């Protein structure tokens, strides 16, 4: 093993070229020691799928340089997707620029390591008030373009953002027929709890706490576990093809972008530590390994969606009570729904603007454009054939988005979609067992005859209290959902 930091300058010269963007044809013409190549030209090399080391290792330099097995489809192994299986690594195209490479190994950086003007332009675009302008591009007009599209939603309503996400995903042209069809959506939400598609909210969420604080509960379309959101938490949705589905494609690119700002003074709060990706696709602090962004995925016809929740400056303590359940409660609910896996988490401490900039840059690196100069319209930036759309006007939203938003707020979706479960209560006062399917009580097992009346009713204290006499009523409604007021949770 050779650590790159200790390599001779001759080796370093090789590495630089390896990690720069050289088209394959030109790469073949390259002879070591010959003419210097220009930087930033793509290169692709077959990597060893079983090479998991964190550093580039050249077992035999001739092997690397004479290898004619290099093809554009088998690019160089990046250093950020190391936790994947050998086979998936083989399918992961990850390239690294010279700058990334230098940074990774703490090589001195020049001041041009990133384009400050680009960041300023992006920041200006975010700050510009589009409401005063005349010609806002509507989401509907642009949702079906076949080239890459980035959308920055300035709405903070969790259900509206989830609806925008679904709309953009559904409208995205099938990447099978449109190879450049890709999307990135960025947004942040006011406080809310979001459960995975196949989860049981009664086993995940403290309904009492949510009711008292009036925190909305949402069920999303992607899998995975429960998360709490607040305005210190930025969400990204990366939409790609099913063929190239990878749990780490976007997070690897995003980490590369974010990591270059660690310790850099660019006028915005810089990230406090370096990031890496774990084998579940979560982004973690590379030294403490605490989770900074959770991931959830959705795979549909031809498409895939990767959703991430980046903790920038979230008030983690304040919301943690929403996910705390008593042992008694946890034991009383039995089902086969997807478990949440609680992990220690940490804030990245990065500014919103800088995060959005890095996410946009990561997306552009994965789906490069031909570099035509920016054209800025009212709420739209066009770069080559890729677009960034800013959303902040409800009038610019298609009515389908509002329909999805409504759908997301229904009891039938949020609670009714819960996988079949049983509530088992065995205390001194009462003993009963209820089976709940699609949100409805389908079976009741109890010595108490009054329970028969519950069959066919929704598993909701609001809907069953009228059929039970006291003190049974107060006992059951408490054990069902802690007397939740669903309107308080934004559920109707």
């Amino acid at each position: 093993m050779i650590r790159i930091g200790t390599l001779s300058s001759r080796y370093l010269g090789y590495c630089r070229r390896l990690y720069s963007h050289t088209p394959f044809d030109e790469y073949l013409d390259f002879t070591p020691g010959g003419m210097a190549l220009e930087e930033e030209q793509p290169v692709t090399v077959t990597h060893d799928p079983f090479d998991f080391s964190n550093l580039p290792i050249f077992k035999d330099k001739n092997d690397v340089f004479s290898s004619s097995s290099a093809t554009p489809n088998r690019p160089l192994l990046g250093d950020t997707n190391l936790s994947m299986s050998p086979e998936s690594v083989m399918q992961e195209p990850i390239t690294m620029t010279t700058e990334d490479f230098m940074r990774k190994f703490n090589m001195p950086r020049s001041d041009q390591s990133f384009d400050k003007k680009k960041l300023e332009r992006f920041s200006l675009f975010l700050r510009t008030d589009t409401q005063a302008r005349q010609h806002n591009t509507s989401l509907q007009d642009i949702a079906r373009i076949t080239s890459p599209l980035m959308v920055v939603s300035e709405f903070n309503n969790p259900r509206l953002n989830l609806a925008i996400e679904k709309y953009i995903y559904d409208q995205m042209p099938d990447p099978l027929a449109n190879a450049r069809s890709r999307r990135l959506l960025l947004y942040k939400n006011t406080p809310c709890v979001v459960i995975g598609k196949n989860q049981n909210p009664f086993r995940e969420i403290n309904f009492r706490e949510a009711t008292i604080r009036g925190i909305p509960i949402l069920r999303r379309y992607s899998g995975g576990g429960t998360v709490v959101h607040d305005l210190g938490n930025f969400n990204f949705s990366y939409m790609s093809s099913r063929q190239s589905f990878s749990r780490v494609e976007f997070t690897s690119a995003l980490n590369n972008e974010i990591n270059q700002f660690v310790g850099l003074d660019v006028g915005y709060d810089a990230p406090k530590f370096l990031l890496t990706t774990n084998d579940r696709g979560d982004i973690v602090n590379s030294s403490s390994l605490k989770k900074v962004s959770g991931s959830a995925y959705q795979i549909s016809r031809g498409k895939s969606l990767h959703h991430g929740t980046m903790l920038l400056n979230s008030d983690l303590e304040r919301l943690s009570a929403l996910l705390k359940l008593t042992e008694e409660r946890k034991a009383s609910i039995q089902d086969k729904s997807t478990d949440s896996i609680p992990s220690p988490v940490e804030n990245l401490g990065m500014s919103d603007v800088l995060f959005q900039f890095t996410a946009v840059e990561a997306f552009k690196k994965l789906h490069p454009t031909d570099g035509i100069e920016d054209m800025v319209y009212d709420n739209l930036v066009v770069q080559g054939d890729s677009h960034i759309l800013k959303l902040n006007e409800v009038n610019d939203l298609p009515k389908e988005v509002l329909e999805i938003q409504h759908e997301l707020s229904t009891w039938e979706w949020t609670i009714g979609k819960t996988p079949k479960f049983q509530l088992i209560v065995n205390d001194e006062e009462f003993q009963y067992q209820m089976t709940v399917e699609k949100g409805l009580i389908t079976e009741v097992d109890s010595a108490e005859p009054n329970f028969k009346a519950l069959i066919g009713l929704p598993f909701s204290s609001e809907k069953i209290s009228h059929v039970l006499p006291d003190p049974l009523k107060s006992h059951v409604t408490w054990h069902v959902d802690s007397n939740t007021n669903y309107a308080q949770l934004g559920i109707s």
Partner: protein
Amino acid sequence: MISALSRQLVKSTPRLFLRHQSNVLNPKSVVFTHSAGPVVLKFTDQHEWLSHHPDGTTFVGITKYASDALGDTTYIELPHDSVGGTVSKGDVIGSVESVKSASEVYSPVDGEIVEVNTALEENPELVNKDPMGDGWIVKMKVGELDGDLLSEEDYIKLLQEE
């Protein structure tokens, strides 16, 4: 050049061989033993398989390749509501959740859903252990098979292209 090429061959051969071996029906499972045959095995480009029996009974599931790519299954959403009803080709007939991914399953054909594999509710891991056998997802009643479906050969070709 030659050494690199042969290395490439050595690398890719076992994978293709494995795929070829594993995209076959489990001969001991009901998806194969339901009738005396002949059983027609077809695939879709969305990584579903179907085994079609002479009486029209058709089992549908996800391929070995898809199940491996998705990883450990934690939950299967089955189309309970559609049992006894008809579905069209391309309709969502369930989803498979694994390592935080919810992956939709589509009906490969027009037909009636006769039964869902409730064993998956207790043991979702059957989809990983025996995707083309006891991990079947729905049982359908289907008339003539659509010409658009892929043969095993076509499906393996598709995997190679991907």
